[in-house]
């Protein structure tokens, strides 16, 4: 059985461009109020805002695997080897 196509909307483009700035608290108070007023009456934009906010949070929380000691030692040796090769011989 094929899954129905996802429901998509044409976003309120004028406001959409400001959502990152809104979430980063970079907008002036008047612009924030305008967005909040729109959100109060637009369920689709509320979902876009909520999922965008969660996306940013997930990116911020995404763990990065630290390099192993062996990997760092390997790279340091390679750097030192390359530097030694490129130094002029006495």
């Amino acid at each position, binding site marked *: 059985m094929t899954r129905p196509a996802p429901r998509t909307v044409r976003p309120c483009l004028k406001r959409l461009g400001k959502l990152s700035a809104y979430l980063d608290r970079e907008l002036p108070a008047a612009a924030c109020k305008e967005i909040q007023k729109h959100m109060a009456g637009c369920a689709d934009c509320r979902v876009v805002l909520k999922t965008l906010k969660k996306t940013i949070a997930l*990116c911020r929380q995404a763990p990065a695997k630290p*390099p192993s000691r062996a990997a760092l030692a390997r*790279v340091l040796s390679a750097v030192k080897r390359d530097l030694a090769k490129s130094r002029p011989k006495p």
Partner: protein
Amino acid sequence: MARVKAGDSAAFERLFARHAPRIHRFASRMCRQAQDAEDILQDTFLAAYRHLDTFRGAARFTTWLYTIAANSCRRTRRHSGAIATIDDHGGNGERHLAVDDWTRRPDVQAMRKETRRAIDEAVAALPKDQRLVLVLRDMEGLPAEEVGRIVGASVPAVKSRLHRARLAVRNELTRRFRERSP
């Protein structure tokens, strides 16, 4: 720094020990392949050592290193292992947005392995200039001004790229979570 410039090998090793984990983390986020991350780390420290004379101290040393690493990432062709690149248009840009609310899914709440993989893959599929900005700003946590210095762009350009990148990742996550819905 003066000791490193004077050729003190132990001082260089201390500098490497202090900064290499951060640059490796950045490189891993940019390219996802362990070997590429090591290559970028190696390129970065080689270039940093060779050009140490040009570091004047006006910027933070870490900013300078990030700049070298970012340039190395840009040169890396085998960069992400991404299956497809998300572009600004088509289904992933701003023209149409999927509106499923996936924020309360248990796998998202718990940041399970598959959620982490979905984020990694969505970030990896971004165009390189957007990925650079998103990794530096949202994953490495640098201020927009510093990101601008690293990528050589104005703060408004950084913010614009960041917004497009966030929307593209959001749309990709929405698509993936929908496919995984029971």
